Structure formats: structure tokens, C-alpha cells
């Protein structure tokens, strides 16, 4: 398997095999994130397209020393999804509506790499360690693209409590995922 930095460089240079490799590895992940965050397949498709175009245009900014390729790709995707969410001024989508039936991971390609699958499992386990209040605040902020103030309003709690729940949840996740990594 190519080194990530080399893969990104080749992608920036329009190497078809690099593009195919990145697509196989991340398109399903980004599309799945889009379904959860945006709640419909059309916008999830746009998210995949926008993400790859942005990755291509900003490939020169990728620095493997600052984080993994997984991290970079998913941060770009989530940031774009939040932009989309925040443009929906009038929409009042609930998280429960976005939880569509699970579908098996894509069959094709090597995107379900063991390392990523393992990280995904650790992330899910870490989420399970949160209190219901922390989890709700985190999900609203993370997958719902809500600001702290909007989380407070939706949860009917003071904004300070919302901020504290978000902070505590994220710190607990960091600890839980770090501990898992050490095992």
C-alpha cells in the first residue's frame, strides 16, 4: 500500500490510480457520515463529491506529521457537512430521523481496512461510556452541527451546562480511545 503522503501527492497530480484508491478507501465513510449528518442520500452524494474536490484542491496542505490521512479526510468531510447544515436555516431535523437502518459496509475495495474498522469500533465503544446527557450534547453538536447555544436550547439546559457536557464528553472520549489504543 502506498504511503499516505505519496498517495495524496499522486492524487493532487491527477493520478487515476491514486484517485481510485482514495475513493475506495473513503467514499463509503464520507457517504455514511453524510447520511447521518445530512439525512438524505442526495446531499450525502454532494458531500462525497465536495469532499474529494476539496481534498484535491488542498492536497498541498496535507502534512502527515500533523495527523493521519483518515483524520484529514474526515475533518474535511465533517466541516463541509456542517456548512451544509448551517445553511438549512429553517430545517428542524432530529437526530432520530437521521438514524437510517444500518447497511453493510461496501463490498468493493480495500476501504474497510482493519485499522480503520478497529478505530471505528473503539469510537463506538467510547461513545457508550458517556452519560445520556453528555452523549446527547455531543451528538447534537457533532452529527447535528449545532452550536453550544443551540444544544442548550434543544436540551432545555443552561448554555454553561451544554458547554460543560460537550467538553466533558470529548475529554472522556479522548481518554477512552487513548486507553483503548494502549491496550
Amino acid at each position: 500500500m502506498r504511503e499516505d503522503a505519496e498517495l495524496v501527492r499522486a492524487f493532487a497530480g491527477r493520478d487515476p490510480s491514486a484517485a481510485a484508491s482514495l475513493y475506495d478507501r473513503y467514499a463509503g465513510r464520507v457517504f455514511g457520515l453524510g447520511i447521518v449528518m445530512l439525512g438524505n442520500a442526495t446531499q450525502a452524494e454532494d458531500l462525497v463529491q465536495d469532499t474529494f474536490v476539496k481534498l484535491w484542491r488542498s492536497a498541498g496542505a496535507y502534512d502527515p506529521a500533523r495527523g493521519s490521512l483518515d483524520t484529514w479526510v474526515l475533518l474535511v468531510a465533517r466541516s463541509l457537512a456542517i456548512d451544509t447544515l448551517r445553511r438549512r436555516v429553517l430545517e428542524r431535523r432530529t437526530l432520530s430521523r437521521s438514524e437510517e437502518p444500518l447497511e453493510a459496509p461496501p463490498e468493493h475495495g480495500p476501504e474497510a481496512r482493519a485499522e480503520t474498522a478497529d478505530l471505528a469500533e473503539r469510537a463506538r465503544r467510547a461513545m457508550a461510556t458517556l452519560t445520556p446527557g453528555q452523549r446527547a450534547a455531543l451528538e447534537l453538536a457533532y452529527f447535528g452541527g449545532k452550536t453550544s447555544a443551540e444544544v442548550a436550547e434543544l436540551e432545555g439546559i443552561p448554555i454553561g451546562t451544554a458547554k460543560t457536557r460537550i467538553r466533558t464528553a470529548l475529554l472522556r472520549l479522548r481518554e477512552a480511545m487513548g486507553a483503548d489504543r494502549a491496550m
Partner: protein
Amino acid sequence: MSLDHEAVQEMLAARALHALDDAERVEADAAIAAHLRGCDECREATEGLEAVAADLALVAPPRRPPRLLEGRLRREIRVRGPRRRSVPDRWVAGVVASVLVAAVAGLAIWNAHLTDRVTTAEQRSANTAELIATVSNPASRTVPLITAPAGGPRAQVSAAYIPGHRRLYLFGYLPEPSPGRVYEVWLARNGVYWDAGTFLPDERGLVFVRIVTDPRRFDTLLVTLEPAGGAPAPTGPAVVTAQL
């Protein structure tokens, strides 16, 4: 140190999740930058929290995207190499040229590049249409950015926006930065800087940056050269700037 440790960590967590609105982010960035200078723990926490935020995306189960999407994407980024200019592209390029020349006399150099470069990428056509819609609006404002000495003579960038709309566009020409460097856009109000993101010109130096914010909330726009990945506050040389 202006804020206590816990308050800064709340800001760090909210910022990592993008759970701050624009105004909060301006304040948070300034407070965090001030605090990080004297707090190793928070400096380490910053990258850790952002990494956790990225890992959280993996909680969403992967889904198979439609088969046609990959082909659409390949066309978009032209991984199969350059293609011939199509008739619609030429038409778009012509419209771009005429509208922009009429609307913004000061953009001749950018426009000359644009008519040439708009040939293939659908994304660029979409960007161009968006920009045309903005600069051709009678209420729009176009502000030429002043080239700072470090920016060199080849920089030519303007900002455009429609008052009341939450979009600010940067467009024009900038030389390719040296390896490992990127351009970073900053918006400032009363001396407090807000990081509006990093960008690189395309292979010919053309710039198109869309910033989702109300520009009237800021008094200054600044572009600096920063290390790849960007900086939490302006550290590099100023390239172009404007009073909004």
C-alpha cells in the same frame, strides 16, 4: 492569562466540534491564542481533541455510495487528464468574460486567466457563476486588496460581497507559495483576528475562496503566508489586505 483553564478547555472542545457560531469563534480564537502561549496542557489538548473529533466520524456506519458517483467525481477532478473545451464551457467562459469586464473594470488580469481556465472543471464553472451573480448584483461591493511588500508584484486579489448576504468571495491571482506554506485568510474586528481558512491558488495561480460569514461584522481582511495546515493566529508575512 485572561481566562481560566476550564473555560479555555470548554472553548477548545466546542471549537474542535465546530460548535461555535461566528461571533463566539472570534472571541474563542483570541482567548485561546492568548492562553495557549502559557499553557502546555491546552496546547497538547488542542490537537488531541481535534483528532478525537475526526475519529468520531467513524461512528457513522459506512454506506455504499451510488455507482455513478465515482464517474461524476472523476470528471470533476479530471483525473483522466485534460479534455477538450466543450461548447458549453466556451459559452460559460464568454459570459464570464463579458459580465465581469462590464461589472468590474479592475479585474482584467483575473478575467483573462479565467476565460482560459474555466474550460474543463464543472466546479470552476459553478464557482464562476456564483461570483458573477455576486459582482453583477447592483448592491454588491468589490474591494481591491492592497498588496503588501512581501506579497510581491504579481499578487492581484479582490474581495466581493453583497451587503446582508453571508458570503464573502476572494478572487484573483496569487503566486504559488513556497513548499510547505499556504495562504491563510483572516477577518478582523477591533484588532481581534478570526481564522477564515487556508487556501492554495490553482496551478495557474488563480484564487477563488468562498467564506461563509457576514463581512459587515469585520473591519479588516488580511491574507498571510503560514505553514501548511494554517496557524491559530497570524504569524507569517502579510500578502494582501483591505479595509472592509
